[in-house]
């Protein structure tokens, strides 16, 4: 718990969050289907649109964890 190594290790793990949206939208096997649809919009479309919010949240968390760090 003392000093340097602890926060740095946390930072490194947080970076893995950046990989999640990459996998979610770059692997069409996950989402190339029409159901379940929301309000008439097929899964293919709302899944990818949803990950726009997802990527903003992931980067926001990484930004907060690494803000001001060198």
């Amino acid at each position, binding site marked *: 718990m003392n000093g340097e190594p602890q926060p740095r290790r946390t930072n490194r793990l947080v970076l893995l969050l950046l990989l999640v*949206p990459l996998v979610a939208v770059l692997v069409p096997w996950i989402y*190339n289907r029409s159901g379940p649809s929301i309000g*008439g919009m097929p899964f*293919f479309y709302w899944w*990818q649109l949803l990950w726009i919010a997802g*990527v903003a949240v992931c*980067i926001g968390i990484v930004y907060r964890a690494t803000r001001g760090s060198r």
Partner: protein
Amino acid sequence: MIPKFNGLEFGIVVGMFAVVTVIGFLATRWRRGASLASVEEWGLGGRRFGTWVTWFLLGGDLYTAYTFVAVPALLFGTGAAGFFAVPYTIVVFPLVMFVAARMWSVCHENGYATAADFVRGRHGSAILALLVAITGIVATMPYIALQLTGIRAVIETMGIGGDWPLWLAFIVLAAYTFFSGLRAPALVAFVKDILIYVMVLVAVIYIPYKLGGYDVIFHGASSALAAKGYGTLLSGSQYLGYTTLALGSALALFLYPHAVTGVLAARSRDVVKKNMSLLPAYSLMLGFIALLGYMALAAHVKPVGGTAAKPDTTTTVPVLFNTMFPHWFAGIAFGAIVIGALVPAAIMAIAAANTFARDIYKPYFRPTASDREEGLVSQIVSVILKLGAVAVIVSLKLTFALEFQLIGGVIVIQILPAVVLGLYTRWFHRWALAVGWLVGMGLSVYMLYVTKSLTANHFGGASFALSTWGFHTKLTIWTGLVGVAVNLIVAAVLTPLLAWLPKGRDETTPDDYLEAEAPPIPA
């Protein structure tokens, strides 16, 4: 079909253009330093932009009018494959977040204004810097020209003939950018983005309401696409093309000079990083704009312009607006698209002109040029680039220009090893990087050359059919990714082999890549 001219619509577009012109000229006085006469001040706005200005600037810069008309046109024409723009603008931000932050720091610490400046300092190679500079300029020029097709789509839809509106718009744009530099598009971007957000919000609520909901839209689009052999889902053979196009376009985006300029104009490293989580708001807008293509299919929109047999599909969205909206709102939406073309065109011209002044003019023509002279060259070149773009677009066929833009990404990604890997390691030898560039570029251009499309025998797009090389498959892959992979392999193999050649001098230090803050603004 020739669309009918409407005075109210035209008046609103002209009025909006006039307001933006006044803002463009007033920008000269906005947060100005001692003098505008240098690349630092004119071309980078003094590197003083905070979170919000950077957000509007980068948003206005990366999400161009061409995107607003071409992406929905792509869904209108080919269905699900056109939606690649959404994963593209999702993955770009996690990919570049830390790269852009390092780039900002090292450039700020050493006074670099372009990617080529950085490459010269990092690898100690004038040749490599020249290759990076030329690549950036060549990839940007057709992109500037393409912004004009967005304006032209609106003009055609409004029923106005002739090329004079294009000339007029770009001459006025060139005039205020000459004086205000990067401050002009940064201020105009506020107006542009607010208008576009309003336009999209209204469009995605009002048009589905009139058409009977998203259910009706997707069914209508699906049956219209089925008639052409496409659909609202990907076919199995489209997976590889979809993924590589999204990933490759994302890797290429921040290598364009105008994206680098937007990043370097920020005030601090944190401003850059924070923006990576704020910019996806534009992607959401883009995602809904893309769906306008399906709304156009469901509403049985017929594009105008072009020839009777082959209408100009970039007019799909303007025609949709014209049929759906009352004239006054269609006018506002058209004005938004026109302004949306001016902002990125201005930034692209500034970025390419900075690159010319800093990395070609000064080292090769006038090594003794002062900051003032460098700035003036940049100002003049930005005017030439804009007027050149108009000349190209009015003289070349439209389809030709569209294909050049696809090629832009394939070309610009070839500087990735020198720039992006250069930010992290000096392991690569400068000559290995130069040869890698040459081989990667050569291969890419060859692959583009042999790519056919329905209308062209060569340069028919950036999706390379693997069957061209004898594979028994319908798979396609984004050409640039193949080129840059080969580029990297060549650079990696040659680096140990060329160890006997002298390495370039690295003028940067490891600490430079982590620098956080700009010094306070002098009073």
